[in-house]
């Protein structure tokens, strides 16, 4: 069967419009952020020259045996904790046997019997409010190398730099009911792991990979059909598209009375369709075998507690706190907590200034706009929380107007200079000295008899024109509130 290419698949599944619903489970692999590989001391730097980060262990040379890396264990436990999992009291590993040239040993060391984390959950915003998506397991395993098929004629090349990089495979229960929920789950998962500092979660670098299991059933039914596993999903958008496509495809099969079969399919990004995978069916199984080369690895209660203490506040809790304790709007709280570095930046600045709302305004507008326009990350900002707080203090104290401060900040962000340096260079200091302003006010009153007369005749609006003149003569440096008061006093006297 095939779908017409020109159909807009995104409109097919508005909630309540389709007679069917999807049953979706997601398998997400994330590369854990560690200095070295999971079973050897090799480095894990992304993008290093091919086969420059390898040793007898990750090349699977005869006689090499794996030794579990403590750092990878810590990251795996932190990730599992952040996903509300129970942590296994000891880590055991199993061999998953299959042949592939980029799998050096002919088996992948993984966790089959006892995953490091089990029974977790992520709460997403569903159509009817918060919804819990259960996580079946999170297990630690090693990545494979990379096959490069098109680089040389008549053969393939192998790069084993990635072989042995620690992966955490996070398997959800089939609790997801729509492509939109799948996207919501993935976004939450990505934010949680980024927050916990356990992974770069960059889909484009392969540090986050998604496979889906999806089946359809009549809406409201609790029947289960055999799921399709869809692979080769390169973005969250591909995930949504592929799920939408699969739902439609499977439902049409069912409508025609054809049986659904468990199969693996491949998402074709160009054609926007799934196609049967050429990979051989693994019906013979992986012949899992307890890894005989490593004794069980005990995780002490003390270690678990220490790792718990290292975990940052999760994004959802932080959002709630910003609204309840700092009085921010849901929108601002959401924007500020989207990324841990930004939230940390905001909180530090708010603490120094003692005024969260002001900082929230500046960060969610000026700073975010600057980051977006220049495609930068928070840690690349030339203006730290301390410098921003200092600038905002000058506004609070009346040394700078809001408009002037925006100009100063723009300069600071671009040049890396301090607020003082910019103000000094631009001669931007606000005139808040009454004596200095009084002379200017006398001049304005003398030179503008018309508006003065209007004001005295009761036209309150004329005062604005006079303040404008004060600002013009001071090149915007007069404190407008002060100018306003002094003018009023002068004219009323």
């Amino acid at each position: 069967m095939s779908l017409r290419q020109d159909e807009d698949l995104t409109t097919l599944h508005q909630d309540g419009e389709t007679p069917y619903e999807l049953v979706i489970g997601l398998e997400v692999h994330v590369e854990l952020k560690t200095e070295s590989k999971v079973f050897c001391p090799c480095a894990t730097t992304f993008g290093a020259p091919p086969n420059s980060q390898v040793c007898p262990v990750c090349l699977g040379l005869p006689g090499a045996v794996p030794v579990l890396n403590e750092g990878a264990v810590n990251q795996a436990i932190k990730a599992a904790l952040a996903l509300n999992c129970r942590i296994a009291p000891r880590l055991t590993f199993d061999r998953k046997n299959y042949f592939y040239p980029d799998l050096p040993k002919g088996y992948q060391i993984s966790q089959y019997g006892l995953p490091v984390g089990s029974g977790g959950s992520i709460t997403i915003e569903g159509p009817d409010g918060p919804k819990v998506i259960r996580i079946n397991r999170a297990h630690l395993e090693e990545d494979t190398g990379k096959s490069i098929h098109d680089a040389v004629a008549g053969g393939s090349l192998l790069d084993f730099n990635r072989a042995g990089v620690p992966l955490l495979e996070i398997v959800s229960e089939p609790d997801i009911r729509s492509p939109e929920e799948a996207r919501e789950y993935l976004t939450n998962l990505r934010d949680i792991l980024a927050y916990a500092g356990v992974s770069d979660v960059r889909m484009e670098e392969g540090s986050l990979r998604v496979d889906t299991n999806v089946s359809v059933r009549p809406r409201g039914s609790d029947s289960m059909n055999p799921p399709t596993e869809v692979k080769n999903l390169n973005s969250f958008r591909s995930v949504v598209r592929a799920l939408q496509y699969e739902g439609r495809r499977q439902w049409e099969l069912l409508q025609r009375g054809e049986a659904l079969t468990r199969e693996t399919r491949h998402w074709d990004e160009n054609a926007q369709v799934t196609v049967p995978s050429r990979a051989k069916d693994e019906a013979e199984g992986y012949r899992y075998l307890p890894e005989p080369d490593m004794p069980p690895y005990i995780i002490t209660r003390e270690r678990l507690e220490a790792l718990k203490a290292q975990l940052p506040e999760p994004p959802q809790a932080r959002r709630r706190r910003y609204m309840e304790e700092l009085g921010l709007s849901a929108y601002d709280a959401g924007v500020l907590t989207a990324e841990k570095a930004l939230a940390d930046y905001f909180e530090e600045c708010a603490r120094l200034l003692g005024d969260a709302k002001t900082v929230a305004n500046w960060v969610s507008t000026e700073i975010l706009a600057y980051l977006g326009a220049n495609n930068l990350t928070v840690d690349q900002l030339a203006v730290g929380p301390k410098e921003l707080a200092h600038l905002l203090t000058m506004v609070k104290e009346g040394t700078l107007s809001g408009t002037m401060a925006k100009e100063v900040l723009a300069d600071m962000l671009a040049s890396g200079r301090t607020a003082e340096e910019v103000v000094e260079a631009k001669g931007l200091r606000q005139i808040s000295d009454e004596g200095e302003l009084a002379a200017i006010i006398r001049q304005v009153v003398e030179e503008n008899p018309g508006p003065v007369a209007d004001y005295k005749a009761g036209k309150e609006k004329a005062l604005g024109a006079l303040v404008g003149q004060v600002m013009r003569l001071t090149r915007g440096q007069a404190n407008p509130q002060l100018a306003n008061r002094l003018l009023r006093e002068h004219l009323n006297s």
Partner: protein
Amino acid sequence: MAGDIMTARETAAAVRAGQASAVEITKAALDRIGALDKDLGAFLAVDEAGALAAAEAVDQKVAAGEDPGPLAGVPVAVKDNLSTKGLATTAGSNILKGYIPPYDATAVARLRAAGAVIVGKTNMDEMGMGATTVNSAFQATKNPWDLDRVPGGSSGGSAAAVAARLVPLSLGSDTGGSVRQPAAMCGITGLRPTYGRVSRYGLLALAGSMDTVGLLALDARDCALALQVVAGPDDRDASAEAEPVGDWAGMAGEAGPKGLDGLRIGLPRQLFQEPVDPAVKAAVREALDQLAGMGAQVEECDLPALTYSLGVYYVLVSAEASSTMSRYDGVRFGLRLGDQQGVAALYEQSRGAGLGPEVKRRILLGTHLLSGDQYESYYMQALRLRRVIKEELEQALSRYDLLAAPAAPTTAFPFDSWRAGTRAMYRGDFVALPASLAGIPALSIPCGFVEGMPVGLQLMGRAYGEETLLRAALAYQEAFDHHRRLPPVNAAGAGAPTAGTAGDGGSHGGGEGQ
């Protein structure tokens, strides 16, 4: 006397004291290998240049007044399943033809650091699968006591090299008896340490849950000295535990006869039954009577679970090996065939031509045992029984200090009779398997002769109880001299030196019909 084959400790002492040159000792060993090994076939590779360079370095250290190490100048042979940097390592298999490892096994590195001189790599049953050293892809090794007989295996090359006094010390590996059984058949002393005592890093795995690096030497004293060098934790092997290493070198140097007063030795009846040859059984029982005469309390006991050892072992070893052998795929090292015809052809042709029949048999068996329902009914069941066997042995070793049994059910058999069938060959391993499954240390010492062929007494001890084990063996070897008897190959070899360590050069009657 120049050219004499001394023990490892005598050699090291002479070199350390500046009384002998490591280069001269190495040359003598190389000459002897050159003269005798064409008949024996113990070595797959002899590294003359590397050995002389290492010996030269030792002599320079001595000359400079630096400590050359406890095994200074001792020629050592290494079983070919231990990774040696820059020196071909084949594990007796065609699939590793041309493979030159870029790294040293930890045990090898520790030997080198202790001043030992690695002279070459020894023959073995392919990947350690076998008990005859006939299952090598390259050559058969012959028994120095009778060139028509097998040396045992799989460390048959290492055992024959020591027995023929080509070297005083060699490294072997013992998964299911591969050090103890050839040591017994070649009339030397072989130690399988506790699982975890010596790092497995660089040992080409057969079954990682049971593999150990073992020692083959002229006597228990040399085993003790060498054990201290290779033992101890290693951050490259998680199973190498942080158990303290004893002063076994000191023990090796202690003089005088030892008593065995109060030592309790249990004899599991199950390990003296069929198919143990009655004459072998008699020789072992006689040795045990002698130990009793030295003060040990020897009594029989029943350990019924041991009768399951054979089945449990072959299920586990085949299952593990079927997975472990997957890395031999022709992709990254060793033999590569069919690589222009796609990945499937590369695998099929490289593995098809590179792996021998016994390796294939165990891969097939292990693959089957891990598939579908067999996983539960065979593999998991074997794991449970392994635990039962381990507990039964541990319990017995709370009542006894040591357990004793034959190290092999027969003496070395003739080449033309070994193909009695795979199952019969597997059965021959049964006396060695309990210690393998339980991970406890065990050794084999020469304890007599049957029709001119040596018999080995096996002693098993508590986990990390090598000291008790070695002390008992040492006491026996102080009192009896079976281990000093020289095989006839010494008398026959052209121009070969003949002196034994204690001047007991008389070869024993029977079977020396070369």
